[in-house]
């Protein structure tokens, strides 16, 4: 916020905050309701499947713990990326942005591996309620991570062409808000789906 320079000097706003940031926070509020509704669907159908495979036979907690750690580390990279852009260090800004996206891709690869493993074990969308609600909930999260990765790579591409500078720290900050939110959602999903299996 305080970093906004003359180049990004906004028009007058009532709160003094940039409108884009309020937009992102409000959008996150709406997304909470989306993931909340999906999570409730998952919980309502927990233990209601009439045929297997059941979650306790399939879920691989150690494996997902590793990918969860990777996703958490990507949040750290995001923080470092924003800090670098804010102090005008675009070289490290680019490095950390790329690292954030790469860790996101590692997480997604883990999810793809997990999904294909489950399908191999006989769990598809159609198998039982666990299959449908699990794939829909974690798949929706994965789609959000994918959007975030594309967003981060776009920012990285802009930075490499010199179109993202210290003046655009707010743009990076807003992408960061989204990225951290997607991470926080995963913490909840990891706890509810895997740890409380």
């Amino acid at each position, binding site marked *: 916020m305080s970093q906004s320079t003359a180049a990004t000097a906004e028009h*007058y706003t*009532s709160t003094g905050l940039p*409108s884009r940031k309020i*937009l992102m926070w409000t*959008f996150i509020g*709406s997304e909470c309701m989306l993931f909340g509704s999906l999570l409730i669907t998952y919980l309502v*159908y927990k233990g*209601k499947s*009439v045929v297997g495979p059941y979650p306790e036979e399939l879920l691989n907690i150690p494996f997902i713990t590793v990918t969860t750690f990777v996703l958490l580390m990507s949040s750290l990279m995001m923080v470092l990326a924003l800090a670098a852009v804010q102090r005008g260090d675009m070289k490290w800004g680019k490095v950390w942005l790329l690292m954030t996206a790469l860790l996101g891709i590692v997480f997604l690869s883990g999810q793809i591996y997990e999904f294909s493993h489950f399908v191999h074990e006989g769990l598809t969308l*159609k198998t039982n309620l666990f299959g449908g609600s699990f794939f829909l909930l974690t798949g929706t999260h994965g789609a959000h991570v994918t959007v975030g990765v594309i967003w981060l790579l776009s920012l990285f591409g802009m930075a490499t062409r010199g179109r993202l500078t210290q003046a655009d720290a707010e743009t990076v900050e807003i992408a960061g808000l989204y990225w951290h939110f997607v991470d926080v959602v995963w913490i909840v999903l990891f706890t509810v789906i895997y740890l409380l299996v």
Partner: protein
Amino acid sequence: MAVTGALASDAARAEKSPHRGAYSGGLWSWITTVDHKRIGIMYALSAFFFFLVGGLEALLIRIQLAGPNGTVIDADLYNQLFTMHGTTMVFLAIMPLSAAFFNFIVPLQIGARDVAFPRLNALSFWVFFLGALFLNASFLFGGAPDAGWFGYANLTSSQYSPGIRIDFWVIGLLVLGVSSIAAALNFIVTIINLRCPGMTPMRMPLFTWMTLVTSFLLVMAFPAITVGLVLLMFDRMFGTLFFNPAAGGDVLLWQHLFWIFGHPEVYILLLPALGAVSEIVPVFSRKPLFGYPFVVYSGVLIAFLGFGVWAHHMFSVGLGPIANTVFSAATMLIAIPTGVKIFNWIATMWGGSLRFRTPMLFAIGFIAMFIIGGLSGIMHSSAASDLQQTDTYFVVAHIHYVLFGGVIFALFAALYYWIPKITGRLLHEGLGKIHFWVMLIAFNLTFFPQHFLGLHGMPRRTFTYQEGLGFEAMNLMSTVGSLLLGASTLIFLWNFIRSIRKGEPAGTDPWEAATLEWSISSPPPHYNFRSLPEVHSRDPLWAVDTSDSVPGDDPARPEPHMPSPSYYPVVLALGIVGLAAGGLTQALPVVFLGVAVMLFGIYGWAFEPLER
């Protein structure tokens, strides 16, 4: 700009507006516009078009029910008509007509030059418009959706509703949800962040307040139906088992998800109407709104409570005595803030210098009809009483007293009140009064008998009835009333078309109103305010002291720069609807084409220079 007490002088009205050409420009200028006023007008025109479509569907229903054993339409078409009547009126008529006023009026009321995100605003409109066409295209391709506007599972499953009718409904509503959420996010940010200097929250006009509350309801409530629709879509397209009882699926989950959205939705429809009435009653009583903070907070309270009452739509499914009691009590609680508002409007009129112009007549008609609808609502709030009324015409009567006698009357009040600001010309007062009285009588003739029909046991959503059940006379009354209602709408249309061509010029402030939209010319210049106003009171144009700075349009000052037109919003909207069409037909090339167009729209949008 201080009001002098007399009606705005004829000289001032006759003065030709300096912004006569405010809406000039060809079709392309409308397609690419990002001006909140033009977008508001497009919302209003398309909403009114769909209001006529939904009304026509209702008239067909009423003609079929005019006598016993009707043969005008068959059961299958009847199912499509009542489903599309409900869906159209809720999603394609009332919500976008409210959105039209959000767009046109709110930035003016808060002293802003546009909404916070003008291109996002254009996107909301185009997604709504194309989504509405998509939904109605179902009539041309194998029939319209036919499972009722709340589409209960598992009637909507592939087993019981094969074909693509329900797919049109599911995907159409998902598309419309994108539009609603985008618009709501935009208005939240606009109202929080673009108020002119001095306009603290407790100085905001009531209509702006209710727009804010409605927008919060939209962003919180729409995700629930989105998830419900996605579950249904997966069941129908990918063979999941969410609503399949044989596999352990729970059909009640649909009802919960739908009504967690559906009851806030009722307030999404109602609160803008309450806001408009709270603007109109003070102006035509020539008194500030009585108990402003109470009216604001009761609106907020209605929204909060609205999230905790959804299961009162589900009393008949047998949730058990504890759930029923809790939801009964919560529902009764909502009567309190609603009653507060009604008493405040009456107290505003009390001792006021009342002027019964057309907007005021519609506002008072709204209060009276809404009270009747509210009272039958309190009857439903008791679970025991509701069990007698569920799925009868009593419920049909109730919802129409709330949504037609309530919301539509208030929206007509708003149209008569704000159209002079939008077009620069007043509507004809005599025709307006004829419209009001015909509509009031016709409305009651149509819907009051339905209370008795319901109590006598006539079920809703049944395409005909046999003679000798005692339903004939009241159904005929209802049908005659509905035809009169249709005629009253034609009076309005004629009044509107006539006024655009030869209506009396409105001048800046034809009603001597108090809020900022009346401080600039009608229609407003494209930049609204040449210099931003500064307010120190709730009713800046009524302020006795002159500390309020409402500068008017000083031609000596430079025109503010406004955002350039953009075609990316309509491109992105086309991509979204293309994706929807691909999902509907399950044709992968169409899906990819839609996604490609979306990506082109998003990237073009992101890298487009804003002001040049």
